[in-house]
């Protein structure tokens, strides 16, 4: 079951734009496909009143403040191993329609954003802008083949793995484990 879920999530991330602008199931725990209107907010600002310009200009986690006052933490997007900040940053303090999945497990409900558009008549965006933003941050063309597997090519991650290994226990621990 886990393998099917991973495959669904990864496949969703690798698919190109053009599919229907509505979330599809990823088979997550207690999953709910949802579409709702909300205001994009800087979560730390919302909680504490510490509010830099532009919701932190991409450096802070973003949330969706619903009309009933509920703050939804946007945890995931449609690209592999990445979050929702790059998807929502352009909409800071704006009302959007968010389309995606709620999943509830271990007592916590989090949200995966699949599509987003500005209210009232914005154009739907597939929530995979992370990939083009990552390419831009790393001086690559968005169509570069490194971009789809960004996680294996991210300089920060590569440096940490080169230092500490994939297991985080040192390079010798990696060598021994991978030889076995």
């Amino acid at each position: 079951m886990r393998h099917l879920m991973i495959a669904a999530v990864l496949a969703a991330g690798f698919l190109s734009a053009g599919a229907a602008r509505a979330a599809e199931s990823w088979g997550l725990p207690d999953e709910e496909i949802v579409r709702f209107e909300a205001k994009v907010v800087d979560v730390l600002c919302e909680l504490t009143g510490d509010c830099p310009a532009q919701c932190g200009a991409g450096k802070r986690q973003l949330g969706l403040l619903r009309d009933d006052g509920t703050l939804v933490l946007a945890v995931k997007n449609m690209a592999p191993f990445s979050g929702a900040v790059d998807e929502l940053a352009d909409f800071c303090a704006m009302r959007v329609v968010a389309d995606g999945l709620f999943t509830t497990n271990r007592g916590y409900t989090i949200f995966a954003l699949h599509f987003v558009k500005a209210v009232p008549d914005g154009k739907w965006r597939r929530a995979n802008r992370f990939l083009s933003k990552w390419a831009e941050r790393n001086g690559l063309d968005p169509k570069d083949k490194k971009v789809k597997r960004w996680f294996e090519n991210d300089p920060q991650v590569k440096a940490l793995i080169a230092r500490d290994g994939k297991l985080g226990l040192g390079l010798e621990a990696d060598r021994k484990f991978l030889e076995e």
Partner: protein
Amino acid sequence: MTGIRKCLLAGLVCVALGAGATVAQAAAGQRIKVTGEVIDSWCYLTEIMYPEGSAHHQCALWCAAGGIPVGILADDGTVYTVLKFEGDSTSNASPKVLEIQSHRVTVEGEVYARDGINYLLIDRVVDDRGIVKLTHDDYGIQPFGK
């Protein structure tokens, strides 16, 4: 509870404009000391793969670098979402937080509970034991095995 709701409950007339609205919405956090493992909140809460310790370290780095909120799984099972780390309010792909990914840590800070999520603002790391949960012999390297 939002500032507006608080005002209504108190029977007050609220004029919430600009920054004033933000201040009105802010609530006080509670001081807390937490011991647990630094985790990727998505993999842990969705259980799409084995999400803890050395087996999941590489994936946890990917997810943190990709901007998925980093959490701390406390010993009592509570999950905290990290929004601030030692004075730095960068919580999207924070290089400082990547340095402690998968580590067992004890931290002090403030927690804000809102709509079922525990948001943690870490003032300081009191103790860092590194990665102590050795799970790779049982679970391999998540999620691709390499």
